[in-house]
């Protein structure tokens, strides 16, 4: 290249110089790319280090974090491949659940333990309003022992000053088309709520056929959370999902407002019924 610089004609010298500059540029860009990758890895490492710092003030979470870390470390020392394979699967499922919790969602499956959280929310001092949708598909709806206990929590909250509004969706066999009031199989349950000061409104399930997304058992705890209950045909809880996500709460409120347009207040039905005045 030095010989070209000395003896070659000027055109060749320019071409060689150009090639030289290109090589230098390429090397510089490659260096920059590697530096960016190194920086990204450094940040990632730092972020991992900051996780415990973020958790440290949250004592309950931090303790769980340490327990999980310790258990994982112990798990790493196990050498059975089958154990490790199934541990991986279980941990993936656990990670999914924790991600759900981080997104503000708690899920209870095939258990009535969700009622503990439900009643705790109803008892919380800052709860001023509770709206619910009761999709009654069986006459025994919320009338077993856990259900009655939850109703008692409703009544206690209403007497404490929580405004409770409930839309009850009824099948036609529980509220026949031509009847002003629901049948005696479900009416005492509705009447009791009405008497305890809950604002109850009724709608027939058949009147909601063209409305999508309103048939559900839902509870709205002010603007704080929304609970969705899935029941089997015998009114037993299959799953209860509680979400503290603002967007989910807002959507549930919109659905409740839409459903309320179809509902008739129980007091109005009492007025309309014979001797209701």
């Amino acid at each position, binding site marked *: 290249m030095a010989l070209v610089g000395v003896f070659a004609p000027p055109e060749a010298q320019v071409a060689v110089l150009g090639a030289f500059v290109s090589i230098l540029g390429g090397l510089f860009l490659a260096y920059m790319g590697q530096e960016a990758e190194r920086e990204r890895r450094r940040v990632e490492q730092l972020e991992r280090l900051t996780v415990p710092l973020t958790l440290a003030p949250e004592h309950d979470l931090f303790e769980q974090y340490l327990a999980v870390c310790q258990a994982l470390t112990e798990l790493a020392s196990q050498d059975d491949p089958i154990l490790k394979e199934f541990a991986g699967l279980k941990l993936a499922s656990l990670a999914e659940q924790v991600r759900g919790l981080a997104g503000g969602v708690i899920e209870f499956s095939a258990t009535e333990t969700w009622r503990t959280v439900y009643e705790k929310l109803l008892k919380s001092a800052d709860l*001023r309003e509770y709206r619910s949708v009761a999709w009654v598909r069986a006459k025994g709806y919320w009338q077993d022992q856990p259900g009655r206990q939850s109703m008692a929590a409703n009544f206690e909250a*209403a*007497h404490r*000053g*929580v*405004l409770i*509004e409930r839309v009850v969706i009824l099948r036609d066999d529980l509220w026949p088309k031509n009847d002003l009031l629901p049948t005696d199989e479900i009416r005492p349950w509705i*009447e009791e709520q*009405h*008497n*305890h*000061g*809950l*604002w109850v409104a009724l709608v027939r399930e058949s009147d909601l056929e063209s409305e999508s997304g309103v048939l559900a058992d839902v509870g709205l705890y002010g603007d704080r959370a929304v609970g969705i209950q899935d029941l089997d045909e015998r009114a037993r809880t299959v799953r209860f999902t509680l979400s503290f996500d603002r967007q989910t709460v807002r959507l549930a409120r919109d659905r409740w407002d839409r459903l309320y347009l179809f509902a008739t*207040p129980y*007091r109005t039905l*009492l*007025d309309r019924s014979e*001797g*209701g*005045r």
Partner: protein
Amino acid sequence: MSEGLYLDTARLGRMSSDARRAVHAFTDLIGEEGGSLYSERFLRHGLAACPTPFRDRYPGLTSWAGVGELKSALRGLVGTPSELPVLLAHRSAVLMRLAARLLFHPCRNVLVTDLGWPGYHDILSDVARRTGRTVTVVPLRDRTLGGRAGAHEVVEEVRRRYSAAKCDGLFLPAVSNLGVRLPLEAIVRSVEADHEVRFVVVDGAQDFCHAGADLGAGFCDLYLSGCHKWLGAYHPLGLACYGRRRSVGVIETTLGHLAATGEIDDPLLRFSAHLESARFEPPAETVSVVPLITCRGAVEDETRARADRPGRQNHRLDNLRATVDRVRSTGWEPLLPDPALRSGILLLRAERPVVRGLPPDTLRSAFQDAHVALTAYPGGYVRVSMPDRLWAEDELVRLEAAFRSNA
């Protein structure tokens, strides 16, 4: 004062003649019998349930037939169906507390007007504050007392404000303490036509046995009143009449809860319920039943007066017009609502600043010196409660003289 004009019924009515007879006889009874078996039977079932010598001894108590019968008679006076309960309590403020809780069970925002009784509004606002709810106040006083709003305007204004503030409950006086009579049923029906009205409470303190709202039409859930003003029982006795069958369950349940937690603690409320039904426990303290006895006597007078003189409310309005004509040029300005909003209460204001500056007690005493009993307020206002029989000419002359001498 017997030769004077008693025009202060809106504050405290004079005791009616049968109420006086009843209380005299009852005083004799408790002097003779104390708390004997008969006195208990008497309280529970009335004089007719006692042996003949006992009945003959206390003829002034003939009208007393037990608490159940008293409540039935009171229902007759307000026009509620016979099966709807009535509550009796020593203090009407206790019943207002119950009403406030009932309103804020289902309501987010209760509409009231500035014609309401401030003491009751304080109770309502207190419950609203504790439960995070709202009270919306509609200003009507100046427009109605100035004669600038009729019944239609009042209905429209309430409907408009109810809609704008997204209210869902009503607490309204049937007749304000300053004499404005609200078209209650028209207001409720108008609002109900377009909006959800979850609970309606009416303050009938100045209405009961005066303007006479008819609750038979079923436009309110609870009607509160007292017996010491226009009924003429003298002894304070709070009264709450249920107005709709649909509300019976919620009122009973709420009352039971508030009594159990001690939030409502009125011995007479408990005792009257106990006398009516053994289901209710008696209070743990001795209760004065004199208000019940005088109330029954006054109800007897009122029932008779309604039958004998069906036009007496018109007499009050005639008296009001005659009063306005007489005192208009005496240095007092009558604040006269639209004819549809008038009651038997007239508010007047002194024209001279010096009179307006007088303390109410001084003003009231000045009228008493002129043999006229009325209510006085700061700012030179006086309130005159019209009698239910037409003025005699000499009474109007004395009334005019009293106003002229205090102008």
